[in-house]
């Protein structure tokens, strides 16, 4: 009887297995396939082993993109996580302003990603954009298309504008879930505001912060549309990140083999980083 039920269970998950096979496993295997061959046409292909991987790992353009990518994701996390927590703490806990604030915060998340790029491209333009003209009028020599630092700052601010809301909303939900009794006990124990944050709010936020850090890391590490629209990766290569470099390789230069090898490495980096973050945060709980 039990065995029969098991067989039924396999049949039941079959649709999911098929969908996942078509949507994830097959494309991934195709990429693996490309990464091991040199393809000239449908009928002329050669097995090259790890050749593409070696080439990709030696490519200085990719090293540069990876370095910029790590700096970018690091900056994103360092700015957005503390800022998100701080703003979540400032939000009203109840009353009519709660829904107003939540809707306003959700707005940047609803904008399509390439539109975010377009908005900031116009907003920051030094000749007609509100921010660009203003910055130049107060004496700053600001031009994100010409100056690498200006471009970086603009891309970062755009990302903060776009994504900090996600961190705020997650933290806000986490804060709302803390029962009043904790705050009441802290008052009776004479705890300072900082102690309340350090010993009640921060520990209780750990779960949502894990999600926030993971999501922000993964999203920022594969960022494409916004900087592509805003700066096109420039000036020079100053804001060219991994995904844009990859697109250039695969679609621009049609180097399918190296691009496939690079895709796999890219995927493994994200997987590895995410796993390390995950373990680190989980282990924070077990200390002591």
């Amino acid at each position: 009887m039990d065995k029969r039920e098991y067989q039924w269970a396999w049949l039941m998950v079959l649709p999911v297995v098929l969908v996942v096979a078509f949507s994830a496993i097959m494309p991934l295997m195709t990429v693996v396939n490309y990464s091991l061959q040199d393809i000239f046409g449908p009928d002329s292909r050669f097995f090259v082993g790890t050749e593409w991987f070696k080439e990709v790992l030696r490519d200085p353009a990719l090293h540069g993109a990876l370095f910029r990518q790590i700096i970018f994701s690091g900056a994103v996390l360092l700015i957005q996580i503390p800022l998100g927590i701080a703003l979540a703490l400032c939000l009203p806990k109840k009353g009519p302003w709660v829904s107003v604030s939540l809707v306003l915060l959700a707005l940047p998340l609803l904008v399509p990603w390439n539109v975010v790029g377009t908005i900031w491209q116009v907003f920051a333009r030094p000749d007609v954009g509100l921010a660009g003209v203003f910055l130049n009028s107060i004496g700053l020599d600001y031009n994100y298309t010409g100056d690498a630092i200006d471009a970086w700052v603009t891309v970062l601010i755009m990302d903060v504008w776009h994504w900090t809301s996600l961190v705020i909303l997650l933290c806000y939900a986490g804060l709302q879930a803390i029962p009043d009794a904790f705050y009441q006990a802290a008052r009776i124990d004479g705890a300072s505001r900082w102690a309340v944050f350090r010993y009640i709010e921060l520990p209780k936020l750990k779960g949502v912060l894990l999600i926030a850090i993971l999501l922000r890391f993964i999203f920022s590490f594969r960022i494409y549309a916004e900087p592509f629209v805003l700066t096109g990766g420039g000036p020079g290569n100053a804001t060219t990140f991994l995904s844009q470099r990859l697109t250039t390789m695969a679609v621009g230069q049609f180097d399918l083999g190296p691009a496939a090898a690079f895709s796999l490495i890219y995927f493994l980096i994200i997987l590895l980083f995410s796993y390390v973050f995950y373990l680190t945060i989980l282990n924070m709980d077990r200390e002591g």
Partner: protein
Amino acid sequence: MARIELNNLAHQYAPGGDYALQPMQHVWEDGGAYALLGPSGCGKTTLLNIISGLLQPSEGRVMFGDRDVTTLAPEQRNIGQVFQFPVIYDTMSVFDNLAFPLRNRKLGEDYVARRVTHIATMLGLDGVLKRRANNLTADAKQKISLGRGLVREDVAAVLFDEPLTVIDPHLKWQLRRKLREVHEQLNLTLVYVTHDQTEALTFADKVVVMLAGQVLQVGTPQDLFERPAHTFVGYFIGSPGMNFFDCQVEGSEAIVDGERIPVDPAMAEAARRAGGLLQLGIRPGLIRPAEDGEPGHTIKVDTVEDLGDYELVTGHLGQHKLHVRLEASEKISGDGLRVVFPKENALLYSDDRLVGQGEKNGG
């Protein structure tokens, strides 16, 4: 340590709204163990939060001894509070949890270590001081919450807001006994909120029964059982609750559906003077079967439940349903039972209040 006095205290959550607490006058004597008993939503927690300072009363004053603390914040009062579910600082060790209130008050580490060890020993937490508080069981966590209240030497009272809700039944009893021990050793004022009469009656020297923001009666468990000041106290305390019958009073008899039940003459007199809706109340366990030849009243028996050491008879006296608790050895034959309502146990109520009490038991 101090007696806690509530002067004309009342509270509305919104101005002009309903009273969550009706105006009251009450004294918690120094070193007393009090239970605050009442159904959910009767204002118990509101009252507790006013005493601890988490809530400012909209009217009246709270006095700790001679000190008016009405407007003081919780940290400025000498109060400990244990909540319904364990409130502990997850990331800290048990030691750090217990030390937290002292460290916040900038006391020396030597003193902190001494106090924490002392209290931990008293509560039986000395073996786990280095463990992380988060990994302990619910009852150990509640002890930590309690310990954070006790660790301060100046603490005047510890307030408990249904502290055993999340504790396993077999540990409830142990923890309650621990509370009694702590009370005896430290001679603190304890106020214990609960909606469970067993908890209240076993814990407290004095029980305060509340209903709809009003204190109905303050008394020893025996007072509440023998002379409930309000019909609600009669219903709420005891299992099953007290029997109540609408009645008229003539001479020194209460008339319930034509049955003439003799009552105490002074009480009958008081009931006549009080007027209003009169009710006769008697505990199921204080009704006894009539002896042979003794004048009594016949009740129609509906069901008899054998509950081990006693039998619970559900029946009717005229139109009125009633419960009678009989010794298990009593024999019940047929569907009629002749019983006596002993005069000293039959109480008269006028508009839900026990007659002839004056202000003695009032809120």
